[in-house]
């Protein structure tokens, strides 16, 4: 029975892809879809600047906030240029199973009249760009307060070409993982597992901070988390690439998962450790829930979202508080604990809670196996290539700020600026 279902789901996916190819062959612009995607693009950009910048900025010590928020802003600029030069082409160009091609370098052939599905290709280019931006920006959370800005600059260029483009192509560009039937609605693997693993590898290669400062302003973190939450509607509901029922359901399940994960983390914290419900716990939980619902958003119903939120909230809490201290890595702002861990939990639970009525795929053991394949391939590829990139960058310029710079704070020592 399960075999038949998985065959049907595979058939449906192939059907979906061929209908996608069909739509590309005979495209018609839908103004409703186009306007929602224009809106979504703005929402997802808002997630990085200033959303993620503030989320991270509030969590570092006072002498490193300029450095931390400037990383997000720099990455927004750099990844945009990379996307323009070759990133878009390498991700969404036809290419092979693993990477796109150079047919659209410098956005050649992206014209006013061109369409992707039912929206202008220009909008699609921008929308997908905002995903590439936030993925790279997320990585920084693990290496703040000690990364050398120049090294990060080079790392960002290489990583967005050598890691983001192939993984994005494999999942969304018609590559290997999408052909296998791995479900990733809005980027659980491409964005969250990808950045979380890269963050962990970078934290391990660069090493621990000399001293850990207390988060200097959790109010900024709450503002940032709220912008992430709001922006996530563009992220998940926008991933339907249409203004339709699927987008509406994606928005609804996103809200439910974020809320239940926020409460789950808060309660887990309240009844263990410090015995206090912290603002940071609420915010961290909500973000964990948003991460976990990302791959599932177009495939699960509200009940599924509720459980995905609860489970991811508790598991990410344990990953950030217990696993991290047990293993001793210095993932400063918990990119691994929230994004990689939450992303993997979400990917697997997508396989469990997917229902046919929502996204055409029924969850089950076979789908869970496929989901694990998606997680495994991403983890393996990202780990190896991120490691190599870091070693190469280190040959050009040190990955790590000097001890004196770290002690004085990267704001003054690397940027010559500080907040009063």
């Amino acid at each position, binding site marked *: 029975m399960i075999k038949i279902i998985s065959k049907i789901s595979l058939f449906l996916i192939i059907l979906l892809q061929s209908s996608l190819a069909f739509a590309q062959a005979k495209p018609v612009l839908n103004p409703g879809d186009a306007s929602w995607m224009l809106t979504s693009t703005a929402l997802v950009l808002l997630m990085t600047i200033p959303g993620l910048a503030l989320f991270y900025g509030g969590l570092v010590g006072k002498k490193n906030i300029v450095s931390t928020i400037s990383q997000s802003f720099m990455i927004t600029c750099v990844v945009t240029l990379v996307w323009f030069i070759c990133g878009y082409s390498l991700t969404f160009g036809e290419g092979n199973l693993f990477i796109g091609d150079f047919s659209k370098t410098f956005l050649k052939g992206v014209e006013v009249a061109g369409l992707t599905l039912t929206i202008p290709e220009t909008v699609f280019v921008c929308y997908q760009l905002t995903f590439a931006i936030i993925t790279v920006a997320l990585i920084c959370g693990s290496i703040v307060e000690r990364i050398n800005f120049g090294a990060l600059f080079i790392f960002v260029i290489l990583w967005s070409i050598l890691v983001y483009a192939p993984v994005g192509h494999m999942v969304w560009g018609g590559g290997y993982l999408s052909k296998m039937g791995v479900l990733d609605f809005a980027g659980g693997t491409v964005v969250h597992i990808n950045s979380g693993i890269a963050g962990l590898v970078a934290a391990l290669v660069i090493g621990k901070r000399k001293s850990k400062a207390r988060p200097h302003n959790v109010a900024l973190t709450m503002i940032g988390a709220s912008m992430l939450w709001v922006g996530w509607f563009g992220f998940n509901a926008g991933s339907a690439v249409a203004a339709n029922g699927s987008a509406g359901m994606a928005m609804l399940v996103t809200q439910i998962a974020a809320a239940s994960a926020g409460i789950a983390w808060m309660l887990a914290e309240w009844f263990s*450790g410090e015995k*206090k419900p*912290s603002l940071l716990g609420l915010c961290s939980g909500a973000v964990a829930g948003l991460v976990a619902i990302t791959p599932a958003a177009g495939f699960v119903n509200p009940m599924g979202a509720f459980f995905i939120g609860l489970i991811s909230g508790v598991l990410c809490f344990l990953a950030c*508080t217990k696993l991290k201290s047990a293993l001793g890595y210095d993932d400063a702002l918990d990119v691994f604990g929230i994004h990689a861990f939450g992303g993997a939990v979400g990917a697997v639970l997508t396989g469990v809670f997917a229902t046919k009525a929502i996204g055409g795929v029924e969850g089950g053991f076979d789908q869970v196996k496929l989901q694990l394949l998606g997680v495994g391939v991403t983890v393996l590829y990202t780990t190896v290539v991120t490691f190599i990139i870091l070693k190469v960058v280190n040959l050009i310029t040190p990955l790590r700020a000097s001890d004196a710079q770290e002690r004085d704070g990267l704001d003054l020592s690397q940027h010559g600026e500080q907040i009063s």
Partner: protein
Amino acid sequence: MKLITAIIKPEQADNVKKALNKIGVVGLTMTDVKGYGRQKGHTEFYRGSEYEVAFLPKAKLEIAVSNKKYKNALETILKTAKTGKIGDGKIFVTNLTQVIRVRTGEKGDKAI
């Protein structure tokens, strides 16, 4: 003349100022300071990580008073700064050899 240096809880500073005004002590200087005494610091938790906060915020009030008003001022500060809980702070009293009002050049009690 005496210089009263009172290091107290920041929340009590307004009460102290109002009460001193009522008894005719009209000038004081307040500085935000950090320190610790018997209260020590405290511990904060962020995502399960423990952070020792060694220095706690206090308000430092510096008040110059004439010998006549000194006793009354001291009692007023003691009464209004006190919450009865640990961390209420300390008062230091030193002899003041001279006070000069910059604008007029007046000296001593007249300058206070």
